[in-house]
């Protein structure tokens, strides 16, 4: 990923960034540790969205549902059953994956815009159930004060846990994208008809992608509990889904690390702006408009455009832009 973006320099940059990430808690104030934890898990969430969106060409418009369901499943498991929180954290991703399977089966028959709108509809239904089932899910209050194992309950502990899980998940996602499965997926994105003709089961691949994406969204949800010890119904609301989409777009949805960069920028910006003014959605909207009109491939996508190395990658890039316009 970085290698293809920036050549040999990419490796050094990547290594440096990694070392920095591990050393942050030693000198950064607590608030920034908390902030970076949030950036990491949101970046993971955005990357998991990018699997169907950027690599699969699927209009995953309500990804936040899986994030929220994963988080709520974990939270409910921890607070309602007597079992250890670790089991709760594991339950989250599987619950999210299960929901992806069900929603996927319903939506997969349709494609493109219709798929997206249907997903928003189904996702909203899940949201309304969580939001209104006051006695079970706490409704508008959400669930807070969730007990987290001591070893990861401090800001530093939560940070390192989040960092480790995020890195592992990113590694897994990267492997998936660069596997034959991933290539088939991108083939389906670029030309579903031809892919079907050479024997790829398009729908099955897409369903598999949705389940994987949902799983990792659920992982992000469990991580949120570790960092914030609370869950809220807004985690399933459609505005969050579109925000994650913006992150992917801003960072570059044809790149692997684009979503993570997008998450970092938006969360930092939001925190910074909120300290001065109450008007955050206005700058966010304007930023979106800027990206849509001038940087449609996102920041990393743009950097990649300027710094491509081999002719092979240039051809890929040309194909991409042709497809894009």
């Amino acid at each position: 990923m970085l290698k293809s973006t920036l050549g040999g320099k990419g490796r050094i940059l990547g290594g440096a960034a990694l070392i920095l990430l591990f050393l942050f808690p030693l000198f950064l104030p607590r608030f920034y540790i908390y902030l970076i934890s949030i950036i990491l898990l949101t970046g993971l969430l955005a990357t998991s969205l990018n699997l169907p969106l950027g690599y699969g060409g699927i209009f995953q418009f309500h990804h936040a549902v899986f994030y929220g369901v994963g988080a709520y499943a974990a939270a409910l498991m921890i607070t309602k059953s007597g079992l250890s929180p670790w089991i709760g954290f594991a339950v989250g991703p599987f619950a999210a994956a299960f929901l992806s399977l069900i929603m996927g089966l319903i939506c997969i028959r349709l494609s493109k815009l219709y798929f997206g709108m249907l997903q928003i509809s189904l996702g909203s239904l899940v949201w309304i159930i969580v939001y209104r089932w006051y006695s079970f899910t706490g409704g508008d209050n959400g669930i807070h004060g969730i007990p987290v194992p001591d070893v990861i309950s401090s800001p530093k502990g939560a940070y390192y846990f989040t960092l480790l899980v995020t890195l592992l998940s990113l590694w897994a996602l990267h492997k998936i994208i660069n596997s034959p499965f991933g290539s088939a997926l991108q083939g389906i994105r670029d030309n579903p008809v031809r892919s079907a003709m050479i024997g790829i089961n398009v729908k099955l691949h897409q369903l598999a992608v949705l389940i994987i994406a949902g799983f990792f969204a659920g992982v992000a949800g469990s991580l949120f509990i570790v960092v914030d010890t609370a869950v809220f119904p807004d985690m399933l609301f459609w505005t969050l889904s579109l925000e994650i989409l913006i992150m992917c777009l801003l960072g570059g949805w044809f790149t692997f690390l684009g979503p993570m960069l997008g998450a970092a920028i938006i969360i930092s910006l939001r925190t910074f702006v909120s300290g001065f003014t109450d008007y955050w959605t206005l700058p966010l909207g304007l930023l979106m408009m800027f990206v849509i009109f001038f940087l449609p491939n996102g920041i990393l996508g743009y950097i990649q455009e300027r710094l491509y190395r081999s002719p092979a990658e240039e051809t890929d890039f040309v194909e991409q832009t042709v497809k894009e316009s």
Partner: protein
Amino acid sequence: MEIVTAIFSPKLMSQIFVGLSRTVILFIVASGLSLILGVLRIPNIWHGSLYMVGAFMTFTISGVLGGGSMGFWMALILAPLGVALVSLIAERSFFQHLYEREHLMLLLLTFAFSLVFGDLVKMVWGMEYKSVPVPRIFQGSVHLFGGLPFPLYNVFLLAIGPVVAIALWLIVNKTKIGKISRAAAVDREMVGAVGINVSWVFAFVFMIGCFLAGLGGALVAPTVNVSLGMDHTLIMEAFLIVIIGGLGNIGGALVGALIFGLAQSLGILIWPQFGIVFPYAAVIVVLLLRPTGLLKSTW
């Protein structure tokens, strides 16, 4: 005979009528959304903000004009027109440049606009709720069913609903521009090939759709608290209605709005604690049986 009176009890009739008045608002907004979706293929997330702007503008206009009945009627005409004008400017300046790009970009642009307008409304009108008084002729209630009072303003809504529906039907089916729009919904390239400026057709349709959003907001203003955040819940409901009705199908928007509005008010009758879930449950049922919507979509 007794069964009939038992079934059509005052409680039930009262709830049905309340649900129908809600249907009117939902239909007006959803039909605009469906129109834009059908012809321009844009899921217009900005629609909710325009609904909200319509309501706020109604507040301001009726306040400036003295706050009485005259003020309200003027607002009812001017606010949707104002919204339509804003939408036209936005469409010509921004949206039209993206028609050749992927749909995702258009969707995200409408989302960006809704974000921007969410804050603009906050800046212009402040953060408190606003209240629009009901025009004097419609104040009070009429005693319909078993002596239960039914607000007169809701009766007005029940009257205006069909008027808007018929007007919309006439425009879409009987005027030249309406027929061109329907053709453009199905095959925009052909329409362009015949020599019609498709771009201006889109502008027209977008304007009409947004006008409807503003009209919905203006009509709903006296019955609810006009506040920030009314865009979010409404746009979600409107999308659900459009989906179960059939994308781009105005008749479908009517059917969807009926299902949604009635399910809510009847749900409250059956199970007051969870009444709000009924419309969403109805949506699930429809989607499981017919995921493409009840009526034919235009694409």
